[in-house]
């Protein structure tokens, strides 16, 4: 579950930007930036605040960081009509370098990792935590971020399919000229899509780090890219993305927790190979699902008014 939720959040972010027509492979970098600022905030403020309030503010900071960082990608892709993969790659390289650089400059002793104390775990939600099976899964040892993930999912579905914004955004991703010809500002729509993906990716970065470790080392282990795969596997539809995210989350959980699962622990497969599992699984899944893949038609093509 801890692995699935960040995937879900970030992948939904990817859905929004790609539905608008901009491909964002810098999700990984945005996660790192979001995680960095959020964790750093927690690290600095631990002495003074704690508990859920600390986490909530950190969430806000991460989200805002993500939005700001995504503006770089938006500007390059939309205004400058640059190759979206290149600008995405640039941001992916920038983020960890920046995180390490700043961490070492600011922290005493030039230490690269940022520590934090995890004071956010909710051992058990009253009442709901007692529901058999589901209670154990969702309402024990949880974080508010888990619930946040589901809320985001629901909102995404509604926004994408039931609102004016969602309809227009989808039009921009499929046929920007059609949208333009009915007076929709394609640039603005695409900006919105990218910013949403930045927000969700930044948030996702924080959500990824908090439950699973006690320090941040300028990496999210390639999660941003896994999120892209989840998005493709989910065929850009929020509900399917949920299932894809759960599937991958399961894979990753198995990979990390193999020592706890009796029969797997007996086979002496080393940890490195387990780490590979999510990525191999992704490849296999992509191999089978890409043939009939229906990406938004105008994705990754810079919108040029003059071209007809």
């Amino acid at each position: 579950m801890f692995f699935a939720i960040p995937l879900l959040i970030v992948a939904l972010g990817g859905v929004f930007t790609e539905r608008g027509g901009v491909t964002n492979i810098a999700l990984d970098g945005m996660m790192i930036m979001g995680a960095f600022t959020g964790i750093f905030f927690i690290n600095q403020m631990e002495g003074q605040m704690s508990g859920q309030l600390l986490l909530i503010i950190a969430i806000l900071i991460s989200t805002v960081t993500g939005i700001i960082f995504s503006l770089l990608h938006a500007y390059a892709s939309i205004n400058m009509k640059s190759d979206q993969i290149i600008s995405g790659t640039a941001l992916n390289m920038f983020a960890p370098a920046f995180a390490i650089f700043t961490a070492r400059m600011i922290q005493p002793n030039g230490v690269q990792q940022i520590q934090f104390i995890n004071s956010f775990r909710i051992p058990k939600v009253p009442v709901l935590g007692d529901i058999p099976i589901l209670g154990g899964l969702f309402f024990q040892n949880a974080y508010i971020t888990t619930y946040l993930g589901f809320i985001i999912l629901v909102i995404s579905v509604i926004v994408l399919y039931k609102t004016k914004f969602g309809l227009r955004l989808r039009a921009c991703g499929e046929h920007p000229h059609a949208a333009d010809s009915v007076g929709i500002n394609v640039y603005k729509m695409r900006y919105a899509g990218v910013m949403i993906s930045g927000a969700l990716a930044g948030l996702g970065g924080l959500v990824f780090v908090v439950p699973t470790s006690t320090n941040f080392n300028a990496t999210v282990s390639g999660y941003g890219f896994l999120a892209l795969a989840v998005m493709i596997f989910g065929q850009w539809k929020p509900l399917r993305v949920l299932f894809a995210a759960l599937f991958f989350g399961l894979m990753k959980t198995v990979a990390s927790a193999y020592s706890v699962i009796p029969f797997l622990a007996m086979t002496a497969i080393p940890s490195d190979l387990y780490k590979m599992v999510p990525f191999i699984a992704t490849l296999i899944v992509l191999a089978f699902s890409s043939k009939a893949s229906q990406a938004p038609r105008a994705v990754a093509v810079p919108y040029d008014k003059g071209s007809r």
Partner: protein
Amino acid sequence: MEYVIEMLNITKAFPGIIANDDITLQLRKGEIHALLGENGAGKSTLMSVLFGLYKPEKGIIKKEGNVVKINNPNDANDLGIGMVHQHFKLVHNFTVLQNIILGVETTKGGFLEMEEPRKKVLALSEQYGLKVDPDALIEDITVGMQQRVEILKMLYRDNEILIFDEPTAVLTPQEIEELMKIMRGLTEEGKSILFITHKLNEIKAVADRVTVLRKGKYVGTVEVCTTSKEEMSEMMVGRKVHFAVEKKASSSGVVTFEVKNLVVPSKRSSKKAVNNVSFDVRKGEIVCIAGIDGNGQSELVYALTGLGPVESGHIFLKGKEITKMSVRDRNVLSMSHIPEDRHKDGLVLDYTLSENLILKKYYTPQYQHNGFIRFNEVDAYAERLIKEFDIRTGEGAKTIVRSMSGGNQQKTIVAREVDYDPEILIAVQPTRGLDVGAIEYIHKQLVEQRDAGKAVLLISLELDEVMNVSDRILVIFEGEIVADLKPEETTIQELGLYMSGSKRKEVAI
């Protein structure tokens, strides 16, 4: 007389070209006003200015006597101006209803509200006789219906001034007649129509007046009923034009190319794209397959040239079975192909002219040695073709093809394919989007090939071209050959009936 729209002294320039040079257009209320000109004359640009897609460098627009500024389609819409584009601007995986309301959605508390729009659309559909299914997906409906959706888009927004950009390019003669009726109906309800075309027949059929543009400049505005087609054509082109193609009597001999019981599957549905088609082409003959876009021609040609799949059936060239041969082998066996989409299939736009000219020959011993390209030979070849076929470019053989005009790009492909000296030349819509001069030239080339004893298979939906150029006409409808006619024994009307499936003739092979 009150003009409802006036475009005065409009100048619009793009990098390197002045698309509209000081043009004046005046539209009376309730009239159908045609805008005539060749491809590239500036008609679409002018209308895009009116619709707010482009901003002119100079000039003003007036509505009912008042100067107005149209900066984007919303402004145009507010003024009651609507446009049906030549390339439909519909989102393929949205429904008809969603496409109609896009941009002017009604919302309730932030959520889309669809019931009101649905009622309005159905009412409009009744009023103007435009049949549509609001919940059908665009990608599933016919082109004719898609066009009706575009028209409904305008009516839904209460547009009074309607612009049609080359609306008949994709319609059968019968659908064209229907469209003409719809247009007249619209003007009777008080709408004013601007109608872009390069087809003189249609102007004669519905328009009241016509404004002619040539190479971005304004030539004149005349009353349709007092002007002949020849006069209009001369205004459009600047010189007298031959309509008929001169050719000798055909001398068909041996069968060179044979197709037997060809079946090609469709990507979209379980119906076959090509369903049990058989025909042959003889030496020294031009056979034309006529039909509305989307009736299986593309799949047929792809199957014949090796670019697409064949489910069953046989294809023979010079007696040899080529059904399963690779594209290269077919080329080597002497098949040439002028493709439907020159940008997609026929040219590598980012390559130079000479690199494109050797696209099918680069691996032959003449042009390479041990894998290394012999650039001297390549350049010499390119120079020869440029001269022979009069291909006009900025920098000769080194020009990047992307920067060449459509006509010259097509000439490049024609030069390459004709010089290949094939036994069978398959030409698909070879004159699409070209100006009259280029069209004349290409027709001449096709006839020359045929006179030299080659077999030519022409796919076209320009009925004038079909009637003038071919020796035999095969009509294709829904993947089947429904007629085998000689041009002198039929009329355009009859062809139209076959093309729309209203008539069938037993084809004996």
